[in-house]
């Protein structure tokens, strides 16, 4: 796998890296998922030098883009736990944050449904737990009340949570990163940490190409790889167990049928929250996730049995679903601290290591990591305070430029105005999602340097519709090759190993 050659601290390699010019940061964050990017953005308020290192070519290429995109209210977690505290706080911070960053969010609420008496008691317990955690507005509804929110749900009672909702997970991660970048944070993409050594003056991070960065404070936000990063500095207390969740994405034809989030009452020792339907902020519906432990932290494959199970589940809930309504399957991995034999969940670990001053360690940030990210960022900022002087910058730019609504989501009048203002808005590249050439070009000129098809996809939704890129892939390729001068070989899905094309069919006049 990716990090096969680990060199532990304790046998530091004394070599030429000491002679090379090494950039020194106050803080380096390892990992550009939603947590790393939220921390980066929070720290960019202060007069600090901050860098983010990420092994992938773009932010949000791991778990942050492969989840349900649910904003949790915070009633599922034990009172007093970090998860409870950070989730409730994150939920409160999320809406204003998304407003500033122009990220799609919708507080559609959630029904946790009980099918029998025993599950009704579980709802009562959840309500009490939620109230102890400070979750506002929880109510137990009878079947009739439940049906006014979502007609057709089966169940005797439900716990209604009005502060639950949905958010665009990769949209949030990218926006946090852009905001941090806008406020001076450096991003080192395709920069995979190979070893970390510590001296009195700070931490030295070296990548697989032998390049080196130095920092006084290192924040481990490496998600599925956080245990490996921790081991590089000699922390052997943690092992992460990747737990895979598979999903189906349903066609937008069903948009509007699901008014709220609907979950089954939780079962003991379930590593997830049960298979459920989740509407997305873009109008699709997700079925999933399953929960299965795997060996590898990047095994995003889907299995025949689980896909069949999810399809069945989908047909039970929507009897008229046709084969073409299942437009895509995908999988994400939860970085779990609880081993398979234990099941269930453990609390997040967020620690300012006393044994390694300056090493802030985040471990097991699975669900509700997305919701918690803004609160985690503040918690980590307070830990950074123990090591650096935090002085607020004179100028911190809170808001991102641009629009929240895409062209596709705009009214006819707004569309006409956009097209009149910039002719590139009139050229539709992705027909299913009605993504315009302007939006593709904007994605490609992202300050983070997005250059892969996945980067374009997460920024624009091109290829995410029902034809899955059959129509727009050639068009995007055309823009890249004919207008931006890429050679076909340079076009890739997520990195150079996932190239799309071996080259030209025939040599072209004047082509590269």
């Amino acid at each position, binding site marked *: 796998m990716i990090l096969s050659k680990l060199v532990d601290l304790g046998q530091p390699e004394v070599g030429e890296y000491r002679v090379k010019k090494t950039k020194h940061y106050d803080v380096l964050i390892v990992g550009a998922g939603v947590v790393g990017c939220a921390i980066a953005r929070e720290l960019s308020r202060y007069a600090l030098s901050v860098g983010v290192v990420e092994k992938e070519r773009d932010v949000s290429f791991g778990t942050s883009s492969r989840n349900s995109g649910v904003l949790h209210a915070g009633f599922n977690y034990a009172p007093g736990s970090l998860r409870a505290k950070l989730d409730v706080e994150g939920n409160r911070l999320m809406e204003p944050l998304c407003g500033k960053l122009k990220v799609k969010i919708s507080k559609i609420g959630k029904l946790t449904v009980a099918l029998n008496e025993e599950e009704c008691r579980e709802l009562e317990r959840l309500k009490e737990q939620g109230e102890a955690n400070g979750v506002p507005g929880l109510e137990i509804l009878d079947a009739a009340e439940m049906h006014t929110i979502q007609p057709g749900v089966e169940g005797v009672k439900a716990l209604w949570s009005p502060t639950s909702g949905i958010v665009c997970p990769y949209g949030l991660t990218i926006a946090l990163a852009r905001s941090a970048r806008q406020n001076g944070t450096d991003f080192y993409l395709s920069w995979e940490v190979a070893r970390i050594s510590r001296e009195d003056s700070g931490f030295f991070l070296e990548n697989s190409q032998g390049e080196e960065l130095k920092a006084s404070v290192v924040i481990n936000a490496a998600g599925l790889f956080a245990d490996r990063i921790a081991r590089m500095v000699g922390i052997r207390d943690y092992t992460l167990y990747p737990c895979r969740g598979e999903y189906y994405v349903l066609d937008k034809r069903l948009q509007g049928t699901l008014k709220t989030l609907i979950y089954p009452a939780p079962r003991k020792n379930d590593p997830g929250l049960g298979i459920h339907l989740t509407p997305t902020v873009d109008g699709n519906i997700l079925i999933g996730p399953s929960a299965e432990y795997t060996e590898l932290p990047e095994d*995003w494959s889907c299995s025949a049995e689980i896909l069949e199970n999810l399809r069945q589940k989908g047909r039970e809930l929507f009897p008229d679903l046709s084969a*073409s309504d299942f437009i895509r399957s995908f999988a994400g991995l939860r970085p779990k601290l609880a081993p398979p034999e234990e099941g269930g969940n453990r609390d997040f670990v967020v620690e300012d290591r006393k044994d390694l001053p300056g090493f802030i360690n985040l471990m097991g940030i699975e669900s509700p990591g997305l919701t918690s990210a803004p609160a985690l960022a503040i918690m980590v900022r307070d830990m950074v305070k123990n090591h650096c002087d935090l002085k607020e910058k004179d100028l911190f730019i809170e808001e991102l430029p641009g629009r929240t609504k895409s062209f596709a989501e705009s009214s*006819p009048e707004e*569309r006409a105005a956009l097209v009149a203002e910039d002719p590139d808005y009139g050229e*539709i590249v992705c027909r299913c999602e009605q993504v*315009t050439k302007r939006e593709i070009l904007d994605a490609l000129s992202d300050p983070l340097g997005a250059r892969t098809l996945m980067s374009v996809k997460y920024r624009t939704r091109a290829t995410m519709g029902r034809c899955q*890129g059959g*129509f727009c892939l050639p068009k995007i390729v055309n823009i890249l090759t004919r207008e931006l001068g890429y050679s076909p070989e340079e076009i*890739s899905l997520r990195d150079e190993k996932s190239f799309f094309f071996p080259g030209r069919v025939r040599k072209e006049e004047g082509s590269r």
Partner: protein
Amino acid sequence: MNLEERDLVIIGGGPAGLAAAISAWEAGCRDILLVERDRVLGGILNQCIHDGFGLHTFNEALSGPEYAARYIEKLRNTGVEVLEQTMVLHLGEDRVLHLASRGTYRTLRARGVILAMGCRERPRGAISIPGTRPSGVFTAGAAQHLMNLENIMVGNRVCILGSGDIGLIMARRMTLEGASVEGVFEILPYSSGLPRNIQQCLNDYDIPLYLGTTVQKIHGSRRLEGVTVAQVGPDRCPLAGSERYVPCDTLLLSVGLIPENELSREASIPLDPRTNGPLVDSSFMTRVPGIFACGNVLHVHDLVDYVSQEAEEAGRFAAAWSCAAARSSANSLSVIPGEGIRYTLPQKISSSESTTLSLRVAAPWRNRSIVVREKEKIVARKSLVRLHPAEMIRIALDAKSLLGVHELEVILQ
């Protein structure tokens, strides 16, 4: 917003839109707008650089672009207004259209609309192949577009899932460009492509066709590394023990075409679950007055000649509706596909006009007849030696034989 009034708007400048525009013009309609989202007219024909088009219409084997050129030249001699690089973003039941093009967003209302949007390919998600999602998996048509129009090679070692015609054509095309095609895998016990394509694209190049076989799993975390193929039983489920790993860097999917009816849905046009296209009467009018449909948006055709013929008829009817405001309210009767028939089209016909039914059988047969009847009364019969779901069958119905008929059933005998 300003609403521009037009007599007839045709959505799509592929073979259906072209033929419909020409025939509507010839029928006397003088205000016709043809909207095409690509840079040039011709639709999917432009990427079909192989020959075999026009055998029925022109008695010649033309390439796709040549076939399109015949219609484009003819269209240039009419006064049909053509908007290229323009996409219809909205169609309402009230026949209001929103059009976007470089620098222009316009709204207009048409008296008549012809849907000629064609079809799209079924993507991987719709057939749910387990495994990873690396680069190197393309629909066959997207690969054809990239190779023939963008001059970009999609891979070197290729497996093809599905024996639809585009998959077969691409097996030959990639072989000719130096790729190694490991095989074509078809889950059904018979090919879903035209027999002449099996011969000319596979047999002539020694490319194996594995029937009753499917791709069970996709391997490779970045670029495709290989596929697991397996034979399937009668229930189309993989047979344990028959799995085989085939190394490849490219998988082309030719697993079916879906009529592209997003705009039709938006306009509340009822669709037939069998054809996935609109329900139409014998004038090719959908259930929404003034909106007509023809070509692959209506039902997937195997020959472009039939698309052109169908579109010519639709164009005439749409012209009569839009321009002479001749709203026919002829007696109509339903046509229902019976035993052994996958679908028939139109689903409603006029009992006072002669018409041609298009249909497909549900499975391959030899020496069978297609019978069109109302209870015991046989309206038409066509006997065929070879019947195949891949080949569309057309039967002419004489107006005289429809006298007194209320509902027709089409069956296989």
